[in-house]
């Protein structure tokens, strides 16, 4: 008891002491002495194209700013949040971190990320943000302030194995457009080619919620409305029932939820709905093995699809003005035209500066060589923000939701009843 009172007292004192200081200390305009900043990054922790491309970007950055040394901390995406939190707890203040959107509210309110509007002067910030897609920037805002600067973005995209399509007697040039088509194609692949038909990368431990949310929102559903959970409401539940229906028809595979990606890369899965970010890795895996194609995510009949973003934003945690400047320079570089050229062509994320797509200095030649990537770009127009959960229990709520979705899709109970039970349970944990 005494300890907690003391802590509270100290926190109050600290905040009183910090306020005028924080307002006074402005970032210097340039870096003239050597500074080291830490960068928590999850692309670096993957054994895929993402790591190489990120190393390349950082080398370019350090060459441009010889005074800034970037110390990288590579952590897989599902653990990076806990790592940043643990390091803050341990007194090691992170400077820049690449974190996913689902933790946005928590990062802003509890982990003390800096709002760019408070850190950078308005003209400078405006100059940098001009040209970036506004829907993307909107995603990193809490109460009108930018805490996360949109960095790597992708939408769910339907990867398909054209060889399996041919074996199943389907036309690989005419990929499924609606879920009804997916069901038919999935059954054909299962029955005629003897391989797994369709699987979404929505249920695994590293998948987050974005593929699931994209499916739900394409049917006009939503996982929450304000502080009210709505993932068991009609439209959202119907989307899950559609998946359950495909499980029953045999079109939707029943494979290990943690490894559909490997199954697809090994050529044993016909259609895989997943982030476009892994395009680079699949391209490598499929080379000389099977004909890899991409199509926009399927729709519910005539309803427009709502591809949500997966991917990450960059957050600055630095307290020291020197480091803040160095961190901001890193943010600026990583979201520049030249950086997006590398990010898009080498990893497969979307360029958040669309003007570089047809610019011969940047992406034009690559897009010409990889015309399928347009399917991904097309979805940017109707990009729908992924919905994060608020409150201190947000992760538990999210887990309850995803557990119930798995149960509804693969289980034996009534999907609506399963979702409703989880929704009621989760609602009591909402703020």
């Amino acid at each position, binding site marked *: 008891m005494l300890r*907690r009172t003391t*802590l*509270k007292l100290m*926190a109050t004192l600290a905040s009183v002491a910090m306020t005028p200081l924080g307002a006074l200390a402005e970032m210097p305009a340039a870096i003239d002495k050597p500074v080291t900043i830490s960068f928590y990054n999850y692309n670096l922790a993957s054994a895929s194209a993402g790591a190489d491309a990120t190393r390349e970007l950082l080398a370019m950055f350090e060459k441009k700013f010889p005074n800034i040394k970037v110390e990288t901390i590579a952590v897989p995406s599902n653990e990076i949040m*806990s790592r940043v*939190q643990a390091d*803050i*707890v341990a007194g090691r203040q992170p400077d820049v971190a690449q974190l996913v959107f689902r933790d946005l509210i928590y990062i802003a309110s*509890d*982990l*003390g990320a800096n709002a760019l509007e408070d850190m950078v002067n308005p003209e400078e910030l405006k100059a940098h943000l001009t040209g970036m897609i506004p829907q993307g920037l909107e995603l990193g805002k809490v109460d009108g302030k930018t805490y996360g600067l949109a960095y790597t973005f992708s939408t769910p995209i339907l990867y398909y194995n054209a060889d399996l399509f041919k074996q199943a007697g389907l036309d690989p040039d005419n990929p499924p457009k609606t879920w009804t088509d997916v069901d038919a194609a999935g059954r054909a692949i299962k029955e005629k080619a003897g391989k*797994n038909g369709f699987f979404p990368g929505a249920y695994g*431990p590293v998948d987050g919620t974005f593929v699931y949310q994209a499916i739900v929102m394409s049917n006009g559903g939503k996982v929450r409305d304000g502080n009210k959970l709505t993932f068991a409401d009609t439209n959202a539940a119907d989307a899950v029932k559609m998946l359950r229906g495909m499980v029953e028809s045999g079109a939707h595979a*029943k*494979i*290990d*939820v*943690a490894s559909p990606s490997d*199954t697809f890369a*090994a050529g*044993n899965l016909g259609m895989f709905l997943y982030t476009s970010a892994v395009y680079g890795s699949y391209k490598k895996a499929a080379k000389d093995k099977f004909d890899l194609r991409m199509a926009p995510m399927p729709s519910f009949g005539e309803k427009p699809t709502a591809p949500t973003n997966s991917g990450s934003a960059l957050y600055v945690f630095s307290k020291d003005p020197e480091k803040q400047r160095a961190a901001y320079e890193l943010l600026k570089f990583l979201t520049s035209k030249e950086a997006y050229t590398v990010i898009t062509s080498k990893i497969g994320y979307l360029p958040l500066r669309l003007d570089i797509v047809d610019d011969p200095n940047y992406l034009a030649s690559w897009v010409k060589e990889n015309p399928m990537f347009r399917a991904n770009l097309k979805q940017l127009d109707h990009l729908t923000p992924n919905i994060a959960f608020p409150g*201190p*229990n947000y*992760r*538990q709520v*999210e*887990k309850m939701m995803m*557990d119930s979705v*798995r*149960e509804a899709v*693969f*289980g034996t109970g009534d999907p609506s009843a399963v979702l409703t039970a989880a929704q009621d*349970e989760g609602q*009591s944990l909402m703020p």
Partner: protein
Amino acid sequence: MTDIQADLARPLALARSPATEREQNVFTVLPWLYLAPALILLMMWTYVPLVQAFQLSFYQWNMLPTAPQRYVGLTNYQRLLALPEMRAALWNTLFYILGLFPMSVVIPLFVAIWTQDLTGRARTVYRALIFVPMIVAPVVAAVLWRWLLNEDQGLVTLGLEQLGFGRIGFLTDPKYALATLTWITGWKLIGFSTLLFSAANAGINPSYIEAARIDGATRWGIIRDLRLPLLSPTILLLSMMTILFGAQWSFAYINVLTNGGPLKSTTNIFYLLWEYGFQTLSAGWSSAAGMIAFAGFAVIAAGCLWLMKRFAVYDN
């Protein structure tokens, strides 16, 4: 894994020296000084965290020092006990324990007794084969089993398909996943238990066996009336370890292979409390789940110790 130190040869009661009455009332510093390092470590790593966990189980807190710890009373416990997930985890924990018994006690006991009579190289080779799974790192073992049991190209799955069993989703079908994980955990344990039984078996005084033979006892008679009673302390010890730690030993395989799925069919109380604490960052829930497990296992441990005292036969 959890260490356990136990005197296999004889009970602690006998190891104690005859009571010395002298200097009972004089406090001496020296013994406490010798004990201090062990006591401090024990306090620091066991009892202080235990008390803190007990305290945290009444709070709602996300482990962030800047976040407030909110007192919620018994809410954490109420919620946990109401969650279907918790009930499933407790049942699964029981299943793990029961399922591990054959592999941690029954099979090793018979392997140890039967290989006793093997001689020379055959015995060494045989025991080495049984012992190897134990020294494979748990994560490596998990990954090997994942490959073996993969639904599309796993050797075991394809082999069984050839034999006409169809494709079994060992890790993807809720019907089989729990049994699969229990098997993998047990497979790793066979070597360890066999080693303990072999050591205890070799420690039996050969003159008893000879005497019995001279009296005309059969091989089975010797096992039933001599070896098994004299092995009883080890049997009870391993049974107790299986009951108390068996479900914990499965943690690495759950974490690597299934994450508690499919449909929570493989989660157990230990995995659940780890998930609450370090995946969803809920210190209160995790501590409450830990307390429930602690209380349950404390009762069971007391029962086991009583049984051990009651039934073990010691060769004095």
